[in-house]
Every structure is written in structure tokens, then in C-alpha cells.
């Protein structure tokens, strides 16, 4: 039953990564900015949870109550101070800017906290069912992902601002004509995107050790998923996350351990060659 177990594990991880990619695709959809610093915000969230746990004994799951609003505020500050000024500049400039922000965050973390890995040992009892064992921490991560995805869906379909985000993603000039303020929508989307990234960081603390420059791995992972699902498509991001999660875990059964980090890259290249606009087929520019 190892295969079934890996599939379930991949599904759980895939949900979490899918939610991470949701944050990236939300930002892309509204302002056509690829946030290369996305993974670095995950690390910021993870470090916040780490210190809350070590210094104040706050459980990583509880610390989401801090990292999510903190990420939201951080995202709004970064948007207003930096990103807002390149939204209408050539794409090259926004890529350079978010790359610079990524460098800045990871090097500040390196400087303040040293390159050491940080980990918390908190374990939930594992779940048994149908002969499949799922580690408790992974199950909690999947539960978090389902909650966030559901909340986001309600927000995007039922509330004014959620609908506004979807309207701007679909056609920003028509949205402007309908009286939607694209500036406010962009700020909101960036805030939500970073809030998602940094709260995912809290959950990541349950699953693995983190280090200051580890952000690029999460950025890449989110990119692979988003490209697979199609830039700008929230449902595609979740689906892409599950596909990557399952393929990654199952492939580790058949491939040498050294090859596993390359799997994501190989999937990315294949997808880009075969279908550059992703599974869900949102149009590339």
C-alpha cells in the first residue's frame, strides 16, 4: 500500500502548494506582476511562527492568526511603497523589482538569523484509514489548505471586493468603466497574496526545517504549479498543485533520491513546450 500512501501524501502536500500558488496567481491576474518574492514571504511567515513558538510557546497553527494579518499588512506596505510604481512599467521592470525584493528579504534574514536551519518539533497523531497512514502534521496542512481555498472561494464569489478582483483579472479596463477602483483592488490582491504566502509559512514550519534562502524553492514550486494550471486561473492553481504533489511523491518511489528536486523542473519544461498556456489555458501575453 506504499503507492496509495504516497498518492494520499501527494494529495495533501499538493493542496497546500496549490493554495500557495493561488496567492501568486491572484497577484498576477490583477496586476500582471510576477511576484518573484512570493517564496520569501513564506519564509518570513515561517520565521515569525518559529520565534513565536520558541519565545512565547505559541503553537504554529495558532500563530496563523498572527502571520496572516501580518502578511496582509506587509503586502499592502510593499505594494504601496514599491510594486505600485511598476505596474504600468514594462514587464522587465516588475520582474527586476520583485527579484530585488526577494534578494533583499532573504539577505536580511541571513544577516539577522544566520544561515542555520530552524525547525520546530510539534507532532499531531497520525491518521489511519483503509490501510493508509497519513502523518498528522500533513493532514493538518491539508485541512488548512482546504479552509483557505474555501474561504477564498466564498470571498471571490460572494463579496463585492472578491467580485471586483475577478472583474479586474478578466478585463481591467472594463472593470474601470464599471466604477471599480483598480488601485484598491491591486492593493487588496497583493495583500491577500502575501497573507496566503506567510500563513503557508506557518504551516510549513510543521512539515520541514526552513532557512533564510529557502524562499526560492517555494517561489519555483508555486511557479511550476501556476504554469501548469495556467497563469491567472485560481482553479488551475489548485489542480496544478495536486498534480505536482502526487507526481512528485509517486516519482520519488521510482527515481533516485538525487533526481527528485529536478522533477519539478522537468515537468515545467515539458508543460512549457507542450502547452505554454497551462492546463486551464488562461492566455499568455
Amino acid at each position, binding site marked *: 500500500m506504499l503507492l496509495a500512501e504516497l498518492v494520499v501524501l501527494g494529495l495533501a502536500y499538493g493542496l497546500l502548494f496549490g493554495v500557495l500558488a493561488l496567492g501568486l496567481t491572484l497577484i498576477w491576474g490583477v496586476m500582471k506582476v510576477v511576484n518573484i518574492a512570493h517564496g520569501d514571504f513564506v519564509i518570513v511567515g515561517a520565521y515569525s511562527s518559529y520565534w513565536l513558538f520558541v519565545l512565547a510557546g505559541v503553537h504554529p497553527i495558532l500563530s496563523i492568526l498572527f502571520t496572516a494579518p501580518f502578511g496582509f499588512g506587509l503586502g499592502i506596505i510593499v505594494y504601496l511603497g514599491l510594486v505600485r510604481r*511598476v505596474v504600468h512599467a514594462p514587464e522587465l521592470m516588475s520582474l527586476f523589482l520583485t527579484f530585488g525584493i526577494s534578494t533583499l528579504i532573504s539577505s536580511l534574514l541571513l544577516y539577522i538569523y544566520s544561515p542555520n536551519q530552524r525547525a520546530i518539533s510539534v507532532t499531531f497523531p497520525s491518521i489511519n484509514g483503509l490501510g493508509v497512514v497519513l502523518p498528522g502534521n500533513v493532514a493538518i496542512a491539508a485541512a488548512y489548505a482546504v479552509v483557505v481555498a474555501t474561504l477564498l472561494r466564498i470571498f471571490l464569489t460572494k463579496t463585492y471586493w472578491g467580485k471586483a478582483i475577478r472583474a479586474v483579472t478578466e478585463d481591467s479596463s472594463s472593470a474601470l468603466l464599471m466604477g471599480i477602483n483598480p488601485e484598491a483592488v491591486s492593493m487588496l490582491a497583493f495583500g491577500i497574496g502575501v497573507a496566503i504566502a506567510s500563513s503557508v509559512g506557518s504551516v510549513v514550519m510543521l512539515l520541514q526545517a526552513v532557512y533564510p534562502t529557502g524562499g*526560492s524553492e517555494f517561489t519555483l514550486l508555486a511557479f511550476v504549479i501556476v504554469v501548469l494550471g495556467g497563469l491567472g486561473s485560481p482553479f488551475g492553481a489548485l489542480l496544478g498543485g495536486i498534480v505536482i504533489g502526487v507526481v512528485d511523491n509517486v516519482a520519488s518511489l521510482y527515481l533516485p533520491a538525487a533526481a527528485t528536486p529536478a522533477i519539478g523542473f522537468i515537468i515545467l519544461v515539458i508543460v512549457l513546450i507542450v502547452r505554454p498556456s497551462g492546463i486551464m489555458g488562461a492566455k499568455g501575453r
Partner: protein
Amino acid sequence: MSPLKLTGFTLTRRRSAEMAVILVLLALLLVAPTFFARISVLFFILNWIVLAESFNMFAGLTGYVNFGHVVFYGVGGYVSALLMVNAHASPYVAVIAGGLASSLLALGISLPTTRLRGAYFAIATLSINEAFFVTFDSWDAVGSAPGLSLPISYYQPVVEYYVMVVVAIACVLSMYAISKSKFGIALQAIRQQEVTANSIGINAAYYKSLALVFSGFFAGLAGALAIWQITFIDPPSAFNVTITVTSISMAMLGGLGTVIGPVIGGALLYELTDLLGLSYPFIHLIILGVIIVGVVLVIPDGILGASRRVLTKVRGRR
């Protein structure tokens, strides 16, 4: 003052002043080993200039960002190191082979990726670096994690310095020649309006591939030369993302898309990357991040572009 007519092009007073400055700098570079003891400092300034200029050769001309620039440097370094260690090749042959290997790699990377637009291209290149690091780190035939050391007999600082001078001049001249040629104009058209460029018969994918091949060639030479000087290579140093970050900030600080910009940026930032980086390893990265963000927000056309704007404003007032 009447401009001086010289073999086809007009030599204005301003242009002759620029030429004089360039010639003096070149002469200083050539005689430097006779009076300057720490020749490796000049070597690495030139090495960084080549890295920044070769990044600029692709990003500055086509408007596409290659976040995997360091891969060309690393592969160039590895190919030349392997030739010197295993085949005892002449260092000149090894360096040129390093450059050629990287341009072949650039061609290989460009085949699937030049069809991608904007952000998709950047994302694809972002993942290349990690793939190469992991591969070289676990590949025993290329020394895997412990890396490779060159036999000490290869170390000839002055010879290496002169080869570096020649490569740096060739790199800057190539950038100049490309940006003035029909090829460069085609790249400019692609940067401004790729769809329109395609519709009037410019094969965008072909021209972008060619630009990446040139970029890869010079970055590969830089990697091979750096390994000849350092006499050691391992995956963390060969595929270090910091090298890409540094090349980008040098090219941007000087002025992306200009010929001289990366030279200015490289010379200015060298102190920061090599000297400050040694004693305060993380602070120089913070500064590089600030420079990239600051240049994007304050002077997107770099020092060169900004100073030109200031100059025309001052002249206009008179």
C-alpha cells in the same frame, strides 16, 4: 570648430574626447601589471564586467530577463576545468572550449524557451539554475560535491590577466557591434513590439536565440577564466545565484541596454561584491537588493541614462 572628417564618420569634439578617454584606459590596462602588484583585483573587475555585459547582451537588447545567467558561467568553468584536469589541455583551448560549451548550452536552452513570452520566459530560466546545481552536485564524473582542483602549474596570473583583458575588450566591442548592426536593430524591434516585429518578417525566436548564444559565449568565457584564476570549482561556487544577482545589479546600475553601462556598473560594484562580500558576507547582498530595487524605482535607465538626462537638461538651459 569644424568637425574632422575621418574615414567615413565624423569625428566631433565630443566623440574624440570619448575616444581619448577609452584609449588612455586601455593603455593603463595593458601596462598595469608593471606597476600594480594586486593584478587579481583588476582581473576580477574585468571578469565582472564581462558577466554584466553578457547579461546585458541578452536582457538589455531583447527585453527578456534570463535569471539563469550564472549557469553559463558555471558550465563554462566546469568544461574548462575538466579539460585541464582530465585532458591536461592548454588553458587557452580550455577557456575557448568553456565559452563554446556555454554558447551550445544557450542554444539548447533557447530552443524551447524563446517561444515563451515575457514572464513565462523568466520563470523557465529561474528554474534552470537549481536543476544544474543539483545535477553537478551529484554527478561523480565532474567531481560532484567536493569539486575539482586545477594542477598548480596552470596558475599564471599575468598571462591570465592579459587573456582577461582581451576577452573583456572583445565582449564590449561585440556588444557595440551588435547594437549598431541590423541584428541589433531587429532585437530592438522585438523588445518594443514583438508581435509587430514578427509580422514584418523578423524571426523573433531566431534572433532571441542568437542573442542568448552570444550572451552564453561570453559568460562561459568569464566562468572559464575565473576558474583558471581561482584554480578550484565546486557546485555551490559555480552555480551561485549571487553571481546572477550581481550581474543584474551591475548591468542595471550602469544602464541596461547601453554598451558602456555594464562597464561602469561592474567597475563601481566590484569593491562591494568582492571586498565587502569577503568580510561581511550578507551585508553586500542586502546592498545589492537595495540597488536593484532603487534603480528600478529611481533611475530605470541606470547611471548612464540618468546622467544623459541631466546633461541635456543643463545644456537646454543655457
